[in-house]
């Protein structure tokens, strides 16, 4: 690869001091600061960052697809053309034909009332610049779909809602690259997908990169995805690129403290950490970013000098391609995220005696769809049980049946000695069940009533539990989940996603339950926030002797938080056992596929050949 960064490349994509500002009545705020990217044809780069890092805004700025309140400065060069400096119409013509864009959500990206084939070929014109004939359009559609691995020609005549998420994302990619662009910008293209589907889509992008000589820009929050797919990684934090290097270099020897902290916070799949590493504080919002190094207030290595003046991206001594935005990069030694195996659960944990939850041969049928199909589950006091599966596996339905929110079609569910399925329960019986098992939900934004203060939400649960000193106990609850007692006066809108999830957990705890059912409680959170919440859940379990039923699609999370696991597929338990056993030596084909699909730098996709 060329080491000369000053030369303007004629092919591929490059940006020069690209900044994005938010225009507001009270002035403008910097969202993304002076971003320099380089992507050669056939090369893939990743922009990695947590929410608030400005990575998605940067992606859209590159294509000039920002909403009107966001304005850009700086230059973007696409195939040697100064993309932001040419006329609007010319720029619009380059979209799709020179630079293309794939969005995160395959469910909203496609037009729901237009046939897939027509969407793929919408931008295509014949040699004379006229729209294609009907027959030619269909032939093209079938050919383009085949290119993205959809071999069934009938798909061209289907509507998006008739396809699975993975298929839709393939269709989206086919539509995006229909005009054979040089550069493809993909904004979190696999975040909404299941892990097995994610793998297929990443492999597809990797293949297209090679066959079409595509310059690929992958925006992702997932370091594993970035390492597995991309040649080089740009790490963004609070609107700045803080580190750039080849994937393997960043993975093995990060030089920026933030990169290292992010890597350390990512839970490993192959062992249980004694304690997940976290990053103190949270990502500063635009307008509240500290002067000097933006990461300094959260950095373990920060000195007064760090905050004194803006820090520039500088080359490191060990590798000419490795640049880092840290004044202390040369002097500090960052620990690589080494294996620190924690206590794996003992084999004969607590699975004797009377189970707290007994589920026997439970089925749930919604209209013509079987969601849960004859499942047996036991949960014993003090253990943490994982329910793992992809979307549609029935794991959430199962969890709702354990809590009594959904009634099984057949089978029995017994919680704390109360049979939930035996006819109508009395008010006292329901109170007993609710006092035994509580649930925490996935989406931190819709899980709390936005019009009530945190305190009033928590007091409601306490009152139902028959607590007298409400104020004191509310403060105690907040403290228990790591929030200051003053948060009782706040409303959900004033909290970050991680804080809301803490409140949701506090609410579940307000009734002093013995079991907490956690439905994907960390899947909407950033890696560093996720680590905080997982540590919190472990502490709570140790302090309060809680029992967890933990629903998730993320095997690395399961590894960290559960003792035993049930693997669900199409409503059936296909494998169960100790978490370490199941993940290390999966016996069922489906579990094997699931484990193999987790992106690993030297695993699934393999590291791309260094050129």
């Amino acid at each position, binding site marked *: 690869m060329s080491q000369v960064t000053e030369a303007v490349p004629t092919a591929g994509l490059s940006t020069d001091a690209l900044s994005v500002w938010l225009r507001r009545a009270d002035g403008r705020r910097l969202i993304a600061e002076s971003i320099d990217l380089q992507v050669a044809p056939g090369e893939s780069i990743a922009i990695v960052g947590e929410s608030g890092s400005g990575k998605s805004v940067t992606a859209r700025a590159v*294509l000039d*697809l920002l909403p009107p309140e966001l304005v850009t400065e700086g230059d973007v060069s696409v195939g040697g053309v100064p993309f932001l400096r040419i006329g609007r119409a010319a720029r*619009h*013509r*380059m*979209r*799709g*034909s020179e630079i*293309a*864009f794939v*969005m995160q*959500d395959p469910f*909203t*990206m*496609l*037009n*729901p*009332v*237009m046939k897939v084939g*027509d969407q793929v070929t*919408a*931008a295509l014109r014949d040699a004379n610049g006229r729209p294609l004939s009907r*027959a*030619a359009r*269909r*032939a093209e559609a*079938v*050919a383009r779909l*085949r290119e993205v691995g959809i071999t069934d*020609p*009938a798909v061209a*005549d289907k*509507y998006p*809602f*008739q396809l699975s998420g993975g298929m839709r994302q393939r269709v*989206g990619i086919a*539509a*995006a690259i*229909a*005009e054979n662009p040089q550069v493809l910008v993909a904004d979190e293209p696999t975040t909404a997908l299941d892990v097995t589907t994610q793998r297929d889509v990443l492999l597809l992008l990797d293949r297209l990169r090679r066959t079409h000589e595509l310059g690929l820009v992958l925006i992702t929050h997932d370091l594993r995805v970035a390492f597995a797919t991309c040649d080089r990684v740009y790490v963004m934090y609070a609107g700045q690129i803080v580190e750039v290097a080849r994937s393997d270099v960043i993975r093995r020897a990060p030089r920026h403290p933030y990169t290292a902290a992010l890597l350390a916070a990512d839970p490993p799949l192959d062992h249980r950490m004694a304690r997940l590493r976290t990053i103190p504080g949270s990502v500063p919002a635009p307008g509240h970013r500290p002067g000097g190094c933006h990461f300094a207030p959260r950095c373990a290595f920060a000195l007064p000098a760090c905050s004194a003046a803006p820090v520039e991206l500088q080359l490191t001594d060990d590798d000419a391609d490795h640049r880092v935005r840290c004044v202390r990069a040369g002097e500090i030694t960052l620990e690589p995220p080494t294996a620190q195996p924690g206590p794996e659960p003992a084999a004969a944990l607590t699975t004797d005696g009377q189970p707290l939850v007994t589920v026997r041969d439970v089925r749930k049928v919604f*209209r*013509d769809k079987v969601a849960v199909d004859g499942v047996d589950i036991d949960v014993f006091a003090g253990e943490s049980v994982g329910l793992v599966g992809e979307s549609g596996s029935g794991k959430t339905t199962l969890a709702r049946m354990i809590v009594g929110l959904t009634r099984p079609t057949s089978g029995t569910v017994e919680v704390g000695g109360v049979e939930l399925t035996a006819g109508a329960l009395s008010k006292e019986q329901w109170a007993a069940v609710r006092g035994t098992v509580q649930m925490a939900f996935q989406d931190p934004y819709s899980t709390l009533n936005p019009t009530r203060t945190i305190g009033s939400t928590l007091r409601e649960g306490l009152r139902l539990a028959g607590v007298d000193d409400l104020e004191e106990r509310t403060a105690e609850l907040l403290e228990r989940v790591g929030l200051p007692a003053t948060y009782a006066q706040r409303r959900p809108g004033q909290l970050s996603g991680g804080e809301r999830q803490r409140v949701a957990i506090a609410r579940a705890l307000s009734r002093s339950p013995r079991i907490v059912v956690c439905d994907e409680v960390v899947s909407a959170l950033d890696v560093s926030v996720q680590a905080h919440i997982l540590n919190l859940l472990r502490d709570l379990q140790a302090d309060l002797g809680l029992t967890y039923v933990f629903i998730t699609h993320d095997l690395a999370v399961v590894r960290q938080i559960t003792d035993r696991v049930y693997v669900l597929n199409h409503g059936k338990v296909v494998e169960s056992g100790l978490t370490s056993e199941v993940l290390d030596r999966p016996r069922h084909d489906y579990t094997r596929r699931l484990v193999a699909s987790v992106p690993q730098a030297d695993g699934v996709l393999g590291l791309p050949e260094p050129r």
Partner: protein
Amino acid sequence: MTVATAPQGSARRALAPGLLRYVVVRVVSAVCVMFAVSIVVFLFIHAAPGGPEHAIGGELATEEQLESIRQRYGFDRPLPEQYLQFLGGILHGDFGESIIQKTPVATLIGETVKVTLPLLAFTWILAMGAGLALGILTASRPGSRLDRFSLGMTTLGASTPAFVVGTFLAWLFGVQLGWFPALGAGEGGLDTVRHLVLPAATAAIVLLAVTTRITRVRVGQILEEDQATFARARGLGRWWTLKHVVLRNAGVQLVTLSGSVVVSLFTGLILVERVFNLPGIGSLMVDAIHDRDMPVIQGVTFCVALLVVTVNLVVDLVCMAIDPRLRARLETNR
């Protein structure tokens, strides 16, 4: 390329069972509603104070007159029999004879429809056309001067009573500027169109706030959706996005809106016809109520109900035709 000859979706040609059942159920239920309407309309005359003979003969009718009315209209026969006769008449387009004008009700309705139907169509086109255009324009420039201006003007139009708007338009364009005739229905052809401009504009202005707002909101939603951004990211043009993304996705809401515009127009047109002195169906109805001309009231009520039911039926079927998701739901919801 060989795959090009693959059979085109054959499922599209044969009506899917769920869709077929939906169409049949919808049509049958529309017919049932019309039967119910016919019963209610039939009973109108019997619900009148003093019974049907007084309704026709008036309060001062003598016993002989009442007796002759009873015989002539068959009020002495049992109700079901009378109803069957009434129904048979309706099915042949016979609503009886006007008591005041002594002409068949069907003829009266036929004459007034010639005035009202063009007015209705004209108003509908104006309200929908202008509403769509304004809605789409303002949605693509949210917060612009045009957006705020259109919101202000359409709200003003909607909150001003139709007779005020009508009188003002008649005074300005009819009397002061003399661009359009302010009164009457015209002699047919282009003259009718000229005569209908002011009444149609009056009725349309009242509706414009609703049609503009609903279009504005829905189109605004769609333009903010990922699919609109994705279309832009592929370099697809404004017109393509308008046609294939905006209009197709808003189709169901716009069709529903245009149906309710037709229905709500009927009440509005009564006022407008009065202001511009048009011999339309609204005027006919108002006169008939005033004169207690029962057969006319019955005939007009039935025809209006028929129009409302038909419009709703058409709206539902068109929505089915334009939204594949609605059709798909029919096939799974068994």
